[in-house]
């Protein structure tokens, strides 16, 4: 993990900005885990490995570019496996997909945004903004649209389940052994990191 990663939001807004665009790019491409100013602490070896994959690409294309754009739009840890599935589907469905991704990345970088709120309004209405919405929707819902024929591409890893994962077991998965009724509810104050 990068040591430059801001530890909390306050730090990132007051003093956490990288000095130049170049170092910012390096920082981002070296670690897609580290873009957020939100309180993301902790790590996953799996995702570090994925981040290394992203870093290896000089000019990202395909899933890597999609992951880069996604990391601008969502400040959580994202699975390359889910991203690859979603990229293939959206590329099929959106003719201007590559151009939209380029626009999202470019505008976020121009704004030097560390969280999505800092650049989302600057995205041009229409195609680019629609694509951005679909990407965010896909990561959270595990499907790219709400049609009856939409292909499920994530369930366990869909982001909508993550904020409550400390309190609500994902259906079919166990929290504890059988007949365990003694567990104390987790506090609501701290949202799980994901």
């Amino acid at each position: 993990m990068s040591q430059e990663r801001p530890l909390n939001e306050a730090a990132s807004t007051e003093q956490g900005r990288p000095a130049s665009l170049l170092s910012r790019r390096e920082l981002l491409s070296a670690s897609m885990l580290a873009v957020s100013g939100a309180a993301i602490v902790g790590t996953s070896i799996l995702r570090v490995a994925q981040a290394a994959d992203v870093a290896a690409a000089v000019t990202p294309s395909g899933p890597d570019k999609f992951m880069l754009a996604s990391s601008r739009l969502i400040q959580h840890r994202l699975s390359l496996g889910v991203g690859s599935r979603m990229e293939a589907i959206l590329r099929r469905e959106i003719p201007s997909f590559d151009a939209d991704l380029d626009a999202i990345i470019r505008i976020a970088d121009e704004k030097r945004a560390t969280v999505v709120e800092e650049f989302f309004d600057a995205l041009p209405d229409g195609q680019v903004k629609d694509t951005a919405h679909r990407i965010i929707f896909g990561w959270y819902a595990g499907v790219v649209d709400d049609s009856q024929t939409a292909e499920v591409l994530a369930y366990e890893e869909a982001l909508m389940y993550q904020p409550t994962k400390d309190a609500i077991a994902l259906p079919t998965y166990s929290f504890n052994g059988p007949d365990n009724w003694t567990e104390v509810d987790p506090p609501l104050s701290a949202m799980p990191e994901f």
Partner: protein
Amino acid sequence: METVRPAISSLRVVALLIAIGTAPAFAADSEEIARGKYIATASDCEACHTQPGGKPLAGGLPLTSPLGLIYSTNITPSKQYGIGSYSLEQFSNALRRGIRRDGAHLYPAMPYASYARLTDDDIKALYAYFMQQVQPVDAPAARQTSLPFPYSMRFSMAFWNALFLDSKPFAPDPSQSAEWNRGKYLVDGAAHCGECHTPRGFFMQKKPSEEYGGAVIGSWYAPNITPDANSGIGALSADELFRYLKYGRVAGKAQAGGEMALAVQLSFSRLSDEDLRAIVSYLRSVPALTDPHAKSKFAQGQPFTDVASFRGVGGMSYDRSLPGGSAQLFAANCATCHSIAAQGSRDTYFPSLFHNSALAAGGGRNVIAAILFGISRSTTDGLAFMPGFGGKTTDIADLSDEQVAQLTNFLVQHYGDTRYSVTPSLVRQVRDGQTPAPALMTLVTVGEWAVGALLLALVIWFIARHSSRTFARGQSS
């Protein structure tokens, strides 16, 4: 659901004392009988001599041996079918020399080579317990052992005994602590750990140079329990080992399955804490045996999931084709309890599969066995249960040998020791409870064939000679 069997409680002992105290004509005192019962627990007589659901110690349980099935015998004090008419000396000979009352030899499936360490005092206490407290069952054991020739020659065990049986009872080493000596007495003697954990040589004798180094026994692999940090138990603290014996698991690192689950349930969990600590203390002092290639068996693997590659792919179907392959076998059969990246449940009831010695030692054999047979182990910690996936009537699934092999390979590759890979034929072996055939058996089989071939050659030669003579005679006449 099984009831939790309590360890020997003081309450029971008190009840026993009252019961014995009020009975008039017992030769042995109640303290001796209670001690005998405790030694019987430590020796785990029940594991082999009591059929599940059967009468205590009435025998008939099949024990797999490389040479064939050996059935345990009725060891209740029934005069006709059990050991009721054994004298103390005959009882002692059976336990420590492997010789029955009628003079016939026992097969070393009866761990008399370990029980030979039992002291005269403890043999006497055991005798008192068996004769005076065990309920006689006046019926023969459900089945009798009949091994095929040449193993049916029980007298051959006399040679085995002459070669391999050390018949000296335990003598304490004065240079060691009382705890260590008690531990050695239990480990080498009553608890007969080496019967499974020590590899066997050509004549199926325990190899002294590899004591407690780990061996395949039936379907399972009894791991190295010497204090080596990587191959053995050296990485576990004394307290972790103590809890393993008492409850059958060290959360996230090791859990007792198969015969060991039974040993924990019936024996170790009922021993006194002092005795368990003594066992741990001794085991941590035996010479460490190292597999130079072994990596730490408690530190392999990491959280991993490949669910994104197949979630929602291919739709629902009832056929057996799985777009996600072995990763999907895992997700469909294992992940509900062990969770999608194999990290186990929060309360550790369902263990994590990475950092777990079951996946990092023994070549994947115990993974296969756990998948096929599941786990059921009852201690004061409660019931630890995993269903089997081997297709028995009470199993939760019916995975084929190929599927179990695929699943096992997925598990050891991602969560265990990546050196291992298993084949469907190994799964078949484990399913059938086969220990790989020892060299002796191959030799005997070859010998049988050789003798057979020789006899056949003689017969052919004789017929050929006879018919050529007849032919010659016919010619001349």
